[in-house]
């Protein structure tokens, strides 16, 4: 047993450099939980690895920042691991929700848009996306209440439907979907504004709740555009890499 422990302990350096295969990494992590000396070693050596990383820093490609920020705005965050702090934070979020809900509802009521769509847009908002929705709700309300607001629906080639509320006056659209097939973690549905010969990224669809995705607000809409959805690697891409599962022609 003692010999076994010592052998495992020798792996701390390789662990700190990610030089273990998955099976050995898991074995070492189990060992770490009951070996404080190993945890101290790993912490120290991981910090040294960080110094090696800093030494090869390089300028990231232009455009990456915009894509990352846009993708983050549409990506739900993990809740904190359960703790007292987490409970407080959840309470805070509930209050926030009651704060934005009436304002959004008011904006929606002003719109001459079918009540069913209104409800769908509101109810699919998930707890995790509240902060994003909060930032977007004014703009969503503006689209829904625009005098020229219109609704379009489409069907995906893989099953599921999409509903779009759009306003050319606002140059924006709100996209929701229902019943799209679930994707593996490494993939995401990406939304595009398609005009002749060009595809503009228009956001990533969030993880669905009860099969419905929360509304995605896309700006820069022009009357020549169609709406497309493709399956892309997590984080999205700057131009489509797969055949769209959905292309919708928008009303004039």
């Amino acid at each position: 047993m003692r010999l076994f422990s010592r052998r495992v302990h020798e792996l701390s350096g390789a662990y700190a450099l990610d030089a273990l295969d998955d099976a050995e990494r898991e074995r070492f992590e189990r060992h770490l939980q009951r070996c404080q000396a190993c945890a101290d070693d790993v912490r120290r050596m991981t910090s040294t690895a960080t110094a090696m990383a800093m030494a090869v820093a390089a300028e990231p490609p232009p455009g990456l920042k915009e894509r990352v920020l846009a993708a983050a705005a549409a990506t739900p965050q993990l809740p904190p691991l359960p703790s007292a702090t987490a409970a407080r934070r959840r309470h805070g979020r509930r209050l926030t929700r009651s704060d934005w809900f009436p304002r959004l509802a008011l904006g929606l009521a002003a719109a001459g848009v079918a009540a069913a769509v209104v409800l769908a847009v509101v109810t699919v908002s998930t707890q995790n996306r509240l902060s994003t929705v909060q930032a977007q709700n004014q703009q969503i309300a503006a689209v829904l209440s625009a005098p020229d607001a219109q609704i379009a629906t489409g069907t995906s080639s893989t099953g599921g439907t999409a509903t779009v509320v759009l306003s050319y006056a606002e140059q924006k659209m709100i996209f929701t979907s229902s019943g799209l097939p679930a994707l593996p973690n490494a993939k995401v549905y990406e939304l595009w504004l398609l005009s002749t010969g060009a595809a503009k990224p228009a956001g990533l669809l969030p993880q669905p709740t009860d099969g419905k995705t929360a509304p995605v607000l896309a700006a820069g809409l022009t009357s020549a555009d169609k709406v497309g959805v493709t399956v892309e690697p997590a984080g999205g891409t700057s131009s489509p890499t797969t055949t769209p599962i959905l292309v919708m022609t928008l009303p004039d």
Partner: protein
Amino acid sequence: MTIPTGPRHRTSRVEARGVPAPRPDRSAPPRDDTDLERLLALVARGDQDAFEALYDKLSGPAYGLVRTVLRDPAQSEEVTQEVMLEVWRAASRFDPARGSATTWALTIAHRRAVDRVRSEAAAADREQRSAPVPAAVDDVAETVEATMDAEQVRRCLEGLTELQREAITLAYYGGYTYPQVATKLEIALGTVKTRIRDGLMRLGNCLGRSW
């Protein structure tokens, strides 16, 4: 500026046991990571402005590291995007007791890069490329701080034995598992384990400050 990178220029496998490691550089100021930890706490609450500030600080090191491991710029960009999104997604899971915010983020970056490079297709692709491992060093962001970091790491790597240095750079910058390192260097598995561990300890002592 180049960082020694594994066995390509190896002329001898004699370890320079008698060579003392350079003295820790105590003149360097301690790195203040509290700013990043403050930003990360805001990001955990969904603050997108804080995330933008965090991106500005971390994307250069993350991209440089990923590209050093993967070599291919397009794949590196894709993986860096995944890494930064993971930082956004998992910000609430950061535990300061286990290391600094920078270390947390760059650990994610390195893990993602090696996961990618060890997938079969990528590995086959990489074998076709003969570029030296840290090609990224050539365009290290021209900030004084980055240059100092690189210079100090280079100097401290030089203070290791050749085997320690080769094993560490192949594992970290090359993304190889330690059994792969053992095969490449034609040494026993146990030897690789201890060379990596001893070398990292010595490198940490030489750097003399923590990240």
